């Protein structure tokens, strides 16, 4: 029922169930340098119109020229909006004279009548506290200001350099209709910017911390991937997706994995996990099912060389590579990039190489599991086959897969390992798990030849 105004970032709107509260008081709190001014300006330019101009009031905390000078570097900044009177920058600092807060109220009264703004931004709000003789005075000022703003069709944004804890105790907290907190978290030696909604009257919102980034595009938020269990029915296809290894399709029974299944390939370094992934992707490509290879180790050139040695080419229009370094990477930011590529390409197959890299980029294991669950669920519902490659250090006789319960949510788990056969060391494949399919946990020998992965006979393993 409550109308919204876009925050200027569609994913932040998603977190806020639509945007900032129209005609409400929206408080943006955050430590210095967290981007309060940038978010406020992005919002300002996204919503200002000729009929409902935006009034951007700077206070004594930062000179207006400085706000403008740095604001100009962003893509959302539009000088014509200022020229046309859609965005009006004013310095309310000089008004804060002897009578301080009362003068602010008089000035606001004047603006509401003469400018008739659809948006009023106060950057920053904290300076008003300094002009209050005591807490009661400040509260009375807040009440008087709120009454004025509530009576007019004006959406307010107030900035204040509070931490999340301070914000909860601030007098502004009580009168604000919506509160967004920005913070910079230290994780090991890395810094991570996180956004959290602390309050949103009359509405639900995506809880928890969401990563965000500031670039010349402005404020970009990556809502934490945390889908709740979706019980709504969806089309469970009885189609099978070929693995790209004919003998393996046979072994699985019905000619491959279930469409939309999540498969975990576990094994030590160099045994052929990536190769299994390539088979999966290039088989899909030949069936006109676009695929994405999401890799953190090999770049496009390195991967091309590997693919080429087996007769494939990354030039294939159905094959897309998403290569990112795990340095300073955030898993939520990455997953939106992946989902964007899925949208652009209509991908039906995804190979993630490797899960260990993703895990290292995640802040904590609980969060990672939740995230992985959401990604797997999204893929299943979209009928996208997700293959995750996981490296283990044991070369032989893997006793335990320590993957924080990921194999739990995988539909298929395939183990690749070395097995000693007499004096020889051979590669072996075992299907540990296939959901909704019968399989025999037999250990099969396999080899890597020019043609790729060649599955052989069952091994008679002697212990």
């Amino acid at each position, binding site marked *: 029922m409550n109308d919204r105004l876009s925050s200027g970032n569609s994913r932040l709107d998603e977190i806020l169930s639509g945007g900032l509260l129209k005609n409400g008081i929206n408080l943006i709190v955050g430590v210095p340098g967290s981007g309060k001014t940038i978010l406020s300006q992005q919002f300002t330019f996204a919503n200002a119109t000729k009929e409902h101009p935006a009034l951007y009031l700077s206070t004594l905390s930062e000179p207006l020229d400085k706000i403008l000078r740095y604001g100009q570097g962003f893509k959302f900044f539009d000088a014509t909006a200022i020229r046309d009177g859609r965005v009006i920058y004013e310095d309310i600092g000089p008004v804060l004279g002897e009578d301080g807060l009362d003068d602010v109220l008089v000035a606001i009264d004047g603006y*509401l009548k003469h400018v008739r703004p659809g948006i009023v931004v106060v950057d920053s709000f904290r300076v008003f506290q300094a002009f209050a003789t005591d807490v009661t005075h400040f509260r009375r000022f807040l009440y008087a200001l709120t009454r004025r703003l509530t009576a007019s069709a004006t959406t307010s944004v107030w900035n204040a350099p509070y931490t999340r804890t301070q914000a909860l105790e601030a007098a502004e907290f009580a009168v604000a209709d919506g509160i967004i907190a920005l913070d910079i978290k230290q994780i090991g030696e890395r810094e991570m910017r996180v956004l959290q909604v602390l309050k949103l009257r009359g509405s639900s919102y995506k809880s928890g911390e969401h990563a965000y980034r500031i670039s010349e595009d402005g404020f970009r938020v990556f809502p934490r991937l945390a889908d709740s269990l979706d019980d709504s029915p969806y089309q469970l296809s009885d189609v099978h997706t070929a693995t790209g290894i004919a003998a393996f399709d046979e072994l699985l029974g019905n000619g491959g994995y279930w469409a939309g299944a999540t498969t975990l390939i576990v094994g030590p370094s160099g045994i052929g996990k990536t190769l299994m992934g390539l088979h999966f992707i290039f088989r899909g490509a030949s069936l006109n099912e676009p695929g994405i290879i999401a890799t953190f180790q090999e770049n496009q050139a390195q991967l091309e060389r590997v693919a080429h040695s087996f007769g494939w080419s990354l030039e294939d229009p159905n094959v897309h590579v998403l290569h990112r370094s795990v340095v300073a990477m955030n898993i939520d930011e990455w997953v939106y990039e992946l989902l964007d590529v899925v949208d652009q390409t209509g991908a039906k197959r995804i190979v993630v190489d490797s899960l260990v890299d993703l895990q290292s980029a995640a802040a904590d294991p609980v969060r990672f599991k939740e995230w992985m669950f959401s990604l797997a669920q999204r893929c299943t519902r979209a009928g996208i086959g997700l293959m995750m490659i996981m490296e283990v250090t044991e070369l032989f006789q893997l006793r335990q897969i320590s993957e924080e319960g990921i194999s739990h949510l995988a539909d298929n788990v395939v183990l690749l390992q070395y097995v000693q056969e007499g004096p020889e060391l051979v590669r072996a494949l075992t299907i540990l798990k296939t959901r909704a399919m019968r399989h025999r946990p037999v250990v099969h020998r396999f080899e890597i030849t020019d043609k790729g992965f060649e599955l052989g006979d069952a091994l008679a393993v002697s212990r």
Partner: protein
Amino acid sequence: MLDIPASTLRAWEERYSMITPVRSEGSQRLYSRRQVEKLRFVKAQIDSGASAADAHRLLAEEARAGGVPAVLEGPPGDRRPLVLIAEKDTYASDLAEYFLRTDGYQVAIAVDATQAKLQFDERSPDVVIIDLLISGGAGFRLVSEFAQKGTSQILAVAAIDAAEEALRAGAAAFMRKPLESLQLVSTVRDLLGTSAIVRSKRNQTAEL
């Protein structure tokens, strides 16, 4: 003025809304000669021992008896359409008054149902803007009462979505608060347009 502190004047204005000065461009309060008369009356009552509330009540009684006029009146022969705003929130009425006045209307303000009825009877406004939640929800009754008289166009307003109930009670239009200036002015203009048609039709029927 009259040795009454400005803050007291403002408090009375907010509390009783009987002496509401117009504002200059610079937001200064300008009192008409009549309003100064009324203030002198109120001050005299207080000086002789009455409370501020009683003094205003006496002023209203005087007015009803034909004494000091209780409401702000424009210059004689003012043909500008009159809008009566029945609104408990003085900030909201102040803004609406300003938006309408600068668009060429005469405006009167009532802060409760009693005042609204009084002003309605005395001044027969062209448009009445009624906050449905005035005087604890008495706005609905006001709407039906005024609508039955059929002399004014009624615009109901409320912070909640009560369009259906308002229209059923007889309002010609409903707007959700806060009132946006352009929308308010254009709605009032539309309502006056309608009422002009209604009136001319009524006159035609009378002629037939």
